[in-house]
């Protein structure tokens, strides 16, 4: 079925910098995706609930505050608990190399660090969402 991929772009936690998230959101829009942009300072509960209500294929989070090890896994857990077992969850932002394996183990499908071309993220979403 020819349908737009739906992506929730979210900024969990307390940092107020969403330039990067907006650039990625805009690139997704231009790639034909429907981007639900939730704004700054979202709690994991808010993100998970929005993901369910919007029935997204993918949740894309951005964190620059350093709280990724706490917040990313929490979103994964809540999304799964609410029945979103087939939702692809990815992250981006300032994430140290050594934290990436742990985040992947916690269910973050991929981490995109600064300098990643937006096309790489978009291709990853297209190739990894679980629904046709």
């Amino acid at each position: 079925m020819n349908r737009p991929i739906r992506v929730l772009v979210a900024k969990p936690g307390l940092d107020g910098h969403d330039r990067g998230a907006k650039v990625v959101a805009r690139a997704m829009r231009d790639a034909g995706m429907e981007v639900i942009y939730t704004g700054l300072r979202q709690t994991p509960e808010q993100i998970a609930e929005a993901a369910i209500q919007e029935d997204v294929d993918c949740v894309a989070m951005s964190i620059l505050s350093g709280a990724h090890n706490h917040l990313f896994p929490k979103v994964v857990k809540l999304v799964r608990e609410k029945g979103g077992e087939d939702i692809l969850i990815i992250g981006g932002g300032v994430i140290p190399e050594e934290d990436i394996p742990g985040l992947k183990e916690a269910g973050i499908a991929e981490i995109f660090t600064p300098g990643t071309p937006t096309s790489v993220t978009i291709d990853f979403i297209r190739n990894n969402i679980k629904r046709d």
Partner: protein
Amino acid sequence: MDIRAGLLSGSKRAAARLITMIENGDPEAIEIIKENYHKTGKARIIGVTGPPGAGKSTVTDKLAKLVRKQGKRVAIIAVDPTSPFSGGAILGDRIRMSDLNTDEGVFIRSMGTRGALGGLSKSVHGAIKVMDIFGCDYIFVETVGVGQSEIDIVKVADTVLMVMVPGLGDDIQAIKAGIMEIGDVFAINKSDREGAEKTATEIELMLDLNGMTEYRPPVKNIIAKDNKGIDELWEALESHYKYMVSSGNFDKRREKAIETEILEIFKQNLLDRVMRLQKNTEYLSELISKVFNKQLDPFNAAVELANVLNKEEGK
């Protein structure tokens, strides 16, 4: 996922998936709506419209919170424009509604227009039915930011709230003809800004020109972000509802909405049939080249198309 069972047991996941299926034209979704259609019609549908940046999402957020205090269940359908070039969209209405996200009694769904030009998405009808079956008492439908003629909201809402802002200046003249005619209640948001009284006066004057009617839309000055004037605005929406019911116009408007919906579905079905014919026989392409070569005119081509459609399908 068992959509049918989930819908009836109150699973937001199931309801959300059903809306996606409607948006994507899944025939199974239509079957589910048909089975449950007798349960629709209970929710009150409030349309929220107005120019871009007027504060439709913020006003909707505040009204939804007020209704939640009465213990009612609320759905919000928020429409934003789809890019005509990429088919993508940025749906940003949730930004103003963050703290409603985790309220158990609230269901928010963002939609792209996906090519529709009337300020809504084609799937809004279906989404409203899903929310209604799901048991929501109030459904707020927020349109895209409108200009002059995006008036589809009047075909789905029981009450249309027009959110305006001061300082549109001469532009107010320009929008008097189209969307200004469909407001049942007017809210002048950002009324702490200069010109709020002037804007209210201009709208009152416009309403004066409508002459004496049994219902005159109220005009309310509000500051949505500070929650100022929201109670009064709600009272105005309630009084419109009461007027509609007591005058018999409530049922009339809903009947009108049903008429529009049946005709829309009929038109779509007819188009689907033509497209199926085209897929099987390329007949439409033949007609196009005949018209292009002036062997035929478009009026007679349409008549021929209808004849062939009946003949082919009668086989």
